């Protein structure tokens, strides 16, 4: 009661702060900027906030907060555009939206998918804010209950979603997830800095691969290449069905799913250290498990869009708890947010344990600015979705070079190294092959995203538990098997059992025909060889280092899976589902262009960049692609190229980013942007 008596006046003064025309104006400004930046894959809150930072110094705190919160809040809303329209996971928060959103766009229902997603985002944001208003007062002790074993258990729960997304052959899904985890462990180990699958002679890999590159490579590139080969628009239907109103109705019909997923989002968001990487998968898994007819998931089931989208905006609200109460950022953008808050005014807002006591009104202002930004952002997005959905009817050959340009730029921003583009192409090729042979790409991505937390928390939990056991047996068990761990363990087991039973019905990659034995077997053998080498590589790390245990364990399990798959391939006839191969049947087989020439275009962009730098290479690439592949007139191609380059330079100038330099730039000294 006492708490509420304190909270109510603070809530009142928070609303007084927010509801000033100038504050709302700054909020809208922030929202619009956030939408513009969030639309591009790989550019999210971090890029946007960095842009605002120089203006924060000494700014009136509430105005600065309105601007920044407006920008941060809409990123998970706006990156839905890329997920639904192009199958590109815009950020880690919208990976799962791709699974059903993109198939809906292919069916001509982009507007419906978008507006269902936006309605869910809005609702999730509001549920998140309402929940937080009460919860934030009592959050501190609850958050502190989540120790390392609990964090590890949540990570494992996230990994268990692989069970649902494993595809028709469960072992293939598990090996795909394991492969993702092994790729996630590349680089310096977190424990003692030992190198896995990399060397200091070749420094690029020592920092590991970035999520932007793996996400774009594994999802976006295979889809872009596939659409380009078929040389048609994204939507197979000439007429766009399902307007935005229908999407809102879909959301209303599934409101309880939306409520539950929002709450999942807030709760997982509250726990520091996990953030966005698991939320959408858990929500997607929940959506699947609570749907009677599971056969439509992966082919354009609207519930598969509503679940993750409800959770990812709610998560932003939840993420404020560790950020404001503990001063520990839940994500990269929150880290900049903390830094920027210190710049505001005369620096009187001190994020951390004293925040609630000294700045409860500011805390509430942030929570409700976040909710308000969601409302504004959603209205803008829904209004725009009908028009933007028309993009799906444009001939894809006209869209593809632009997309290649955007994803190359986005990938390069992650490490500012030409190797980023090479890695993108390599992972993209892996993605194409996984798609072809029906290996679960979502499972791979879950494995990749959760590899680092799983390894770190496992190592830390073991080490701390050992110390607790040294004190006494009782304290050790109490530490490992807390009530939260036991509950999570039960949920995980149930979800794995149910998931594996249902996985056969959920074809996240669509139906794939089987054919000859040779190609699928060759791919499996290559995967097995990589895993075996990863095992050998990890085993050669000295035995006192903890950095070898996790990759060895994962690789060991995967090798068993690979062995089982090889035996099965030897025994089964070539019509078995294990030999799924997209090139033999269906749309890829009927495509008007072959895989290699299409991939060559993208590789050519990379090669030219290595020689002449990104901007010159881009000019040559855009022009010749338009002229040769899309077959447009010279004038059209010139205009297209010019627009593309101006756009790219404008964006880089605005965000103060560089382009990849090539060999030519080593010897010459060009002015920006050619340097």
């Amino acid at each position, binding site marked *: 009661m006492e708490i509420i008596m304190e909270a109510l006046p603070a809530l009142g003064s928070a609303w007084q702060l927010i509801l000033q025309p100038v504050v709302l104006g700054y909020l809208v400004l922030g929202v619009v900027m956030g*939408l513009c930046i969030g639309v591009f894959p790989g550019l999210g809150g971090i890029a946007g906030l960095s842009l605002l930072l120089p203006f924060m110094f000494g700014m009136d705190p509430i105005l600065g907060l309105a601007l920044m919160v407006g920008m941060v809040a809409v990123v998970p809303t706006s990156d839905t555009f890329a997920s639904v329209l192009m199958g590109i996971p815009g950020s880690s928060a919208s990976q799962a939206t791709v699974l059903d959103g993109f198939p809906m766009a292919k069916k001509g229902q982009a507007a419906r998918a978008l507006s269902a997603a936006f309605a869910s985002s809005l609702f999730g944001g509001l549920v998140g804010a309402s929940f937080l208003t009460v919860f934030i007062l009592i959050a501190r002790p609850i958050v502190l209950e989540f120790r390392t074993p609990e964090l590890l258990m949540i990570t494992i729960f996230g990994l268990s979603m692989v069970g649902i997304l494993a595809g028709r052959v469960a072992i293939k899904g598990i090996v795909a997830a394991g492969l993702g985890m092994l790729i996630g462990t590349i680089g310096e180990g977190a424990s003692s800095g030992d190198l896995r699958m990399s060397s200091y002679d070749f420094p690029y890999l020592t*920092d590991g691969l970035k999520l932007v590159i793996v996400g774009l490579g594994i999802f976006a590139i295979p889809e872009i290449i596939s659409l380009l080969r078929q040389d048609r628009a994204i939507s197979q239907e000439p007429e766009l069905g399902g307007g935005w109103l229908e999407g809102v109705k879909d959301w209303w019909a599934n409101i309880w799913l939306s409520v539950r997923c929002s709450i999942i989002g807030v709760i997982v968001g509250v726990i520091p250290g996990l953030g966005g990487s698991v939320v959408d998968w858990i929500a997607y898994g929940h959506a699947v498990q609570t749907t009677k007819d599971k056969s439509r998931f992966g082919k354009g089931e609207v519930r598969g869009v509503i679940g993750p989208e409800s959770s990812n905006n709610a998560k932003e609200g939840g993420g404020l708890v560790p950020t404001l109460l503990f001063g520990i950022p839940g994500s990269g953008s929150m880290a900049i947010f903390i830094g920027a808050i210190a710049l505001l005014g005369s620096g009187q807002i001190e994020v951390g344990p*004293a925040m609630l006591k000294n700045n409860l009104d500011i805390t509430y202002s942030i929570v409700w600015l976040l909710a308000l930004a969601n409302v504004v952002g959603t209205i803008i997005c829904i209004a725009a979705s009908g028009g933007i959905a028309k993009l799906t009817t444009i001939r894809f050959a006209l869209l593809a070079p632009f997309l290649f340009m955007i994803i190359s730029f986005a990938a390069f921003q992650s490490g500012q190294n030409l190797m980023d583009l090479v890695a993108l192409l390599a992972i993209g090729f892996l993605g194409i092959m996984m798609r072809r042979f029906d290996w679960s790409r979502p499972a791979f991505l879950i494995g990749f995203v959760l590899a680092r937390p799983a390894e770190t928390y496992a190592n830390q939990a073991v080490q701390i538990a050992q110390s607790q056991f040294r004190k006494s047996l009782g304290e050790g068990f109490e530490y490992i098997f807390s009530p939260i761990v036991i509950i999570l363990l039960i949920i995980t087991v149930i979800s794995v059992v149910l998931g594996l039973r249902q996985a056969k019905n959920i074809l996240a990659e669509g139906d794939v025909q089987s054919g000859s034995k040779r190609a699928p077997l060759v791919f499996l053998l290559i995967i097995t060889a990589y895993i075996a080498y990863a095992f050998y590589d990890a085993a050669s790390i000295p035995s006192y280092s903890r950095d070898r245990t996790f990759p060895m364990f994962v690789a060991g399990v995967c090798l068993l899976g690979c062995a089982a798959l090889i035996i099965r391939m030897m025994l089964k006839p070539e019509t078995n589902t294990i030999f799924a191969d997209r090139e033999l049947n269906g749309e890829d087989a009927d495509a008007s262009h072959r895989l290699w020439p299409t991939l060559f275009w993208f590789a050519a962009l990379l090669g030219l960049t290595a020689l002449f730098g990104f901007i010159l290479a881009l000019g040559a690439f855009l022009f010749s692609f338009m002229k040769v592949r899309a077959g447009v007139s010279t004038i059209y191609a010139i205009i297209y190229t010019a627009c593309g380059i101006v756009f790219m330079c404008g964006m880089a100038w605005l965000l103060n980013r560089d382009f990849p330099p090539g060999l030519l730039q080593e010897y010459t000294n060009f002015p920006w942007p050619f340097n």
Partner: protein
Amino acid sequence: MSTFKTTRRVAASLLAAAAATFSFQAHADGHSMDMAGKTVEWIIPFSETGGSAKWANFYAPLLSEALPGQPTVVVKFMPGAGSTKGANYFQEQEFEDGTTIFGSSGSTQFPFLLGDPRVKFDYADWNVVLASGTGGVAYLPPDLAAKMDGMDASALKDIDFIYGNQGATRLDLVPTLAWEMLGLNVESVMGIKGRGDGRLMFERGEANIDYQTSSSYLSGVTPLVEAGTAVPMMTWGALDDDGNIVRDPTFPEIPTFKEVCESTEGCETSGEQWDAWKAFFIAGFPAQKMVFLPNGASDAAIATYTAAFEAVKARPDFAEISGKRLGKYPQMTGAAAKKALDSATKVTPEAKAFIINWLQEKYGVSLN
């Protein structure tokens, strides 16, 4: 596309607004270098989220105001290989017009001092224009702090301590070596992403000893001390003009490690171990973060930047705004910065050998 044009307009108008604000601030100087219309790139070899980012974001707008012609100062983050990547990149930059500067930190200094094979840079080539100091505070849970007899930590020797460690060769080696010298049995749990995670581990009761740099201690631990869930144990201290360790000016009431060591049996404030600890403390804290111009910088450029940072320090509100953000530590320019750089990047071969051997024995970390 049309939406994006809007961003550019918005940004352009924001820029215009900012330019208008700056132009009101008159500046009187007669430097040879006019930087009007230029863009200064300040390379920070860490991600947007760390302490160096906070430090650079604090200084960037002030520096922009103070440089002649008010150039735009942008902070450019180049993380990788624990800051070695960005430092190697900076080493390759040639001086042109003073629009490239670099911000290093203790985590850049340590691999350099320890001879990490990835280090391809040399501090001796660079030109320091600012050195910012900081300090650090170790703290304990109240029940363990109560066991200390004044400054005597002998009673803590039979306790199993757990500490969230960012990495054996990072700044964390200063606290871990200090605790070892006191005879404490501290087990390092590795893989902590930042000191904030370490504090959270302490708050959750998983770790029972921790340290924070001064600014994080002020914002994150002081409330815990007030709430009675943490008690400060000691600071690393600060250096006086003669190079002696004295009490930290930000925390004059907390004893230094040196004092605690003197009061604790078995801990020596002389000899090889102490010298090694002191050398790495000096490299890591009193001149933790520095701003450099690249190899071959002109005297005019060095003078211009030095004057600009002096102008920032001379702001009437500087003590107030920097005290909150950076703590009460010397922000050194000119000769003082050079002296700080010297002491931060030179350790005796004995100290280096001691630490390398200690890392090998304690953590199995091999630096060759």
